[in-house]
């Protein structure tokens, strides 16, 4: 079975500092996609960043970057220069590129950015 694990239920970081959120996954597939979604207090789910498994280069989007370790099945999210607006629940998610149409989500990490 495919699983996604986020082992940090809650984290906090000082404004302007850097924080890393962890995500591990389990799959026997060789090609897949990984995502980080942000859910602010408004409850709207927003895509933060995505990574294609066959690409070795880590994805980056402005202050957000990932550390993708395929052999270790690890996909962590780094937020640099944290801002108050980064306060949210963050979900790691996974989907394969063939066969199933399903996505698997982790249980989430609640991040609070402190002023």
């Amino acid at each position: 079975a495919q699983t996604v694990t986020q082992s940090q239920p809650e984290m906090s970081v000082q404004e302007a500092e850097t924080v890393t959120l962890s995500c591990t996954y389990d799959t026997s597939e060789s090609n897949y996609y990984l995502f980080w979604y942000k859910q602010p207090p408004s409850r709207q789910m927003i895509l933060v960043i995505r990574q294609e498994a066959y690409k070795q280069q880590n994805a980056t989007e402005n202050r957000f970057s990932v550390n993708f370790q395929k052999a270790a099945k690890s996909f962590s999210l780094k937020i640099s220069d944290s801002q108050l607006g980064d306060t949210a629940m963050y979900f790691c998610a996974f989907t394969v590129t063939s066969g199933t149409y399903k996505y698997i989500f982790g249980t989430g990490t609640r991040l609070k950015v402190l002023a």
Partner: protein
Amino acid sequence: DAGITQSPRHKVTETGTPVTLRCHQTENHRYMYWYRQDPGHGLRLIHYSYGVKDTDKGEVSDGYSVSRSKTEDFLLTLESATSSQTSVYFCATRPGLAAGNEQFFGPGTRLTVL
């Protein structure tokens, strides 16, 4: 953002009553999903659709049914609501199976079953 709306946005109902939640999209996306979000569980897939009248079960489908009679609408029905179905329900869409397609989410529906 994909045009995805959910109705109602909030609902309070009583145990044993039927409830239908509607997801409407204006993006002509092929795939549609219903999730429930509960503390400590993240998002769990209830049902999904890969085309008009084509649906399949997710990991928590017991007590739920779905229908998709046209591309833009995906209905989730609780035949006889129970307190364990109190949750926030999200609809999501996906354009196609092209590589890298993300899911787009609706705003969510908070359902309380008393």
